[in-house]
């Protein structure tokens, strides 16, 4: 096992105030399961899960309550025992409407039969283990929520030579992954070994920002017996170091082609929490029903890292952290750079929720917008090497062709441009607007191409 510095320097990036001190030293605290849980069916990329329970059904801890809704989807399990009260509409962590399974917790903690497990996984076929990962409902826990069993099963033509484990956690305030690395390095490392076995032995690069020396120490210790193809890569602290494309570049010097996937350059990125979930599933047969959530922000009485059951509502976690000092401001799911603002604290925690922030107006940015002064700060900050200012002006003028020519579709919406813009222009909104418009035009063109030959026939 080696400890390396990141060999390639990521372009652009910013250094927001990290505010991690509020929770970085606080051990993970389990949240007592609340009386009512709402397990969202949309907590991953892809099709929503399909409920397989009905109103009035009794469920037990870890019982399968929804199955995958398609090839790119994930199943869901009950984190508590109790009764299904309703299958109703709720809000997902990304702010979209989603069906939710509402469960009344009976407090009995009646366990369901465990899932299949393979404590002796070293002698198993990768396909068997991928099946266990799928059955546990594991999705990427870093934020995007791509179903893990799909990700670790790339087409055979795509040879994965490097498995990157993402422990960067570059968003301000969040310390969920940090605490997990400090407290459960063995679980993470065993999960990494399982993933490595499934992917037929790629090199391992565990990437951690240098502002988490205790996490680096803990994992170095847990991994000290590993071979030389395993390394911890210490990243410079910058935002967005943990974004998939930037992470791959900083470690391998490879650029994921525009519109492509990491597997196109032989890389695969998994979050540290996902690795821990893989270990729990494969070795213990435990489905993904809990996750660590950082509850922070100056409005929270007692910021903490909480091990929350999936389906607990934001308000449950906030109440567990002593409630709010004051109201107003924003309630953000995720980090302050890319997180989603919510109007309603009754939103349930999903598998991708790494943080719940209650930020006061003073911590937030509210500005009037000024015309672009062409200072070029966004150009220097953009980690994708785009020209955000020029694109934003094109979108503002509804010149979407120009925006497309300037590669707006490659924007990762990290928010660096808006963060540094002295004119306080809503840069990310311009980018999103441009992307949405271009996608719509592309869809229309595609429809015309497929329908016009017949439509034109007399």
């Amino acid at each position, binding site marked *: 096992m080696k400890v390396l510095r990141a060999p390639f320097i990521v372009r652009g990036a910013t250094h927001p105030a990290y505010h991690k001190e509020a929770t970085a030293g606080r051990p993970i605290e389990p949240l007592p399961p609340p009386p009512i849980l709402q397990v969202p069916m949309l907590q991953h990329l892809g099709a929503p899960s399909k409920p397989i329970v009905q109103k009035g059904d009794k469920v037990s801890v870890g019982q399968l309550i929804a199955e995958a809704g398609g090839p790119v989807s994930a199943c869901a399990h009950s984190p508590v025992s109790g009764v299904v009260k309703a299958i109703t509409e709720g809000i997902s962590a990304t702010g979209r409407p989603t069906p939710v399974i509402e469960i009344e917790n009976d407090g009995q903690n009646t366990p369901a039969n465990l899932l299949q497990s393979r404590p002796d996984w070293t002698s198993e076929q990768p396909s068997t283990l991928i099946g266990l990962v799928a059955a546990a409902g594991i999705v990427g826990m870093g934020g995007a929520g791509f179903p893990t069993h799909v990700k670790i099963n790339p087409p055979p033509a795509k040879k994965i030579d490097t498995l990157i484990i993402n422990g960067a956690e570059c968003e301000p305030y969040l310390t969920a992954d940090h605490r997990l690395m400090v407290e459960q390095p063995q679980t993470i490392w065993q999960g990494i070994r399982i993933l490595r076995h499934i992917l037929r032995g790629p090199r391992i690069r565990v990437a951690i920002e240098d502002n988490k020396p205790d996490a680096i120490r803990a994992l170095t210790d847990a991994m000290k017996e590993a071979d030389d193809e395993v390394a911890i890569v210490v990243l410079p602290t910058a935002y967005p170091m943990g974004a998939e494309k930037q992470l791959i570049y900083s470690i391998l010097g490879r650029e994921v082609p525009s519109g492509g996937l990491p597997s196109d350059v032989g890389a695969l990125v998994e979050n540290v929490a996902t690795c821990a979930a893989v270990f729990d599933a494969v070795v213990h047969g435990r489905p993904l029903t809990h996750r660590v959530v950082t509850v922070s922000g100056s409005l929270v009485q007692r910021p903490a890292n909480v091990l929350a059951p999936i389906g607990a509502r934001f308000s449950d976690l*906030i109440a567990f952290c002593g409630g709010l000092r004051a109201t107003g401001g924003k309630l953000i799911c995720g980090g302050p750079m890319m997180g989603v*603002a919510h109007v309603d*604290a009754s939103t349930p925690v999903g598998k991708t929720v790494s943080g719940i922030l209650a930020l006061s107006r003073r911590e937030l940015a509210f500005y009037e917008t000024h015309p672009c*002064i062409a200072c070029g700060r966004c150009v220097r900050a953009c980690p994708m090497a785009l*020209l955000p200012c020029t694109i934003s002006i094109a979108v503002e003028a509804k010149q979407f062709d120009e925006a497309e020519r300037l590669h707006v579709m490659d924007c990762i919406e990290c928010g660096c441009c808006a963060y540094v813009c002295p004119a306080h222009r809503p840069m990310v909104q311009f980018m999103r607007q441009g992307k949405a418009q271009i996608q719509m035009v592309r869809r229309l063109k595609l429809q015309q191409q497929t329908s016009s030959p017949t439509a034109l026939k007399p």
Partner: protein
Amino acid sequence: MPDVEPQPWILSPSPHIHEGSSVRGLMRDVLIALLPAVLAAALRHGFDAFRLILVCASSCVLAEMAARFLMRRSLAIGDLSALVTGLLLALNLPPLLPSWMAALGSFVAIIIAKQLFGGLGYNIFNPALAGRVFLLISFPVAMTTWALPDAVTTATPLSAWKTAWAAGAPPPAFGETWPLRDLFLGIRNGGLGSLGEISEAAILLGGLYLLARRVIDWEIPLFFIGTVAILSGIFHWIDPTRNLSPLYHLATGGLFLGAFFMATDLVTTPVTRTGQILFALGCGVLTFVIRRFGGYPEGVSFAILIMNGAAPLLDRYTVPRPYGHRRTSKP
């Protein structure tokens, strides 16, 4: 169940935080950075320095308000940019210039070069330089009458050299009249030129402040000054009797003021890094060519204005290769 949300939360898209910079903050930093130069001008010329600064600053602010009022736009002087233009214009004027000319130049700078283009952010040319060049072309004598504090008019090293060169005479020996140190610090006989050209040391101090505050980047000043130094160095090396030493090129005239405060204007320069470097190289080459071969002894203003016009093109031809793309896309 404790009620944790009696008041609705604000809903708006990410990012939710900002580094805290603002147009007003940038402009305020430029004003602060100009203080050493203002001080040098005031020490040198006293009343005339204050007179020109006051006239230009107030005319610019008034012109901005008037123009925006007439165009039925918000009276956006809160961004301090008109004040910056006024101060920069004053620093680009000779100390004895009549006040009405300074006011006229301010109106041209703000109304024609800035507001008619749409205001801050839309102007193509540096307003202060447009005002200065307008005055230079309209009132060539008043704009090239340089004075020492006792109101005795004098040549500057650049104009003395140009006069001698035009007459085919050997260049004057500067070493005794104008020691380099005096020119750089702006003391004794060396405190010459426009109000902002007096002390290169003062400009440099302000420039370093702008760099430290990250209001400007180092590329433009370095490549601008570097290009002039290298070109004049080559010529001086080839024929020292007919070419001014590069040290004089740096220590006199408006090169430092231009390189740190005018060519770094955010609005009128390219946004890409490569574009900014090419812009600065162009400024350097043009400055040297005008100084060495042109009719005017000084070329910094013209050089920057010409390159301002080229900035949109420079941006267009220096679009960086985005992550994940091969370098093929045409501008």
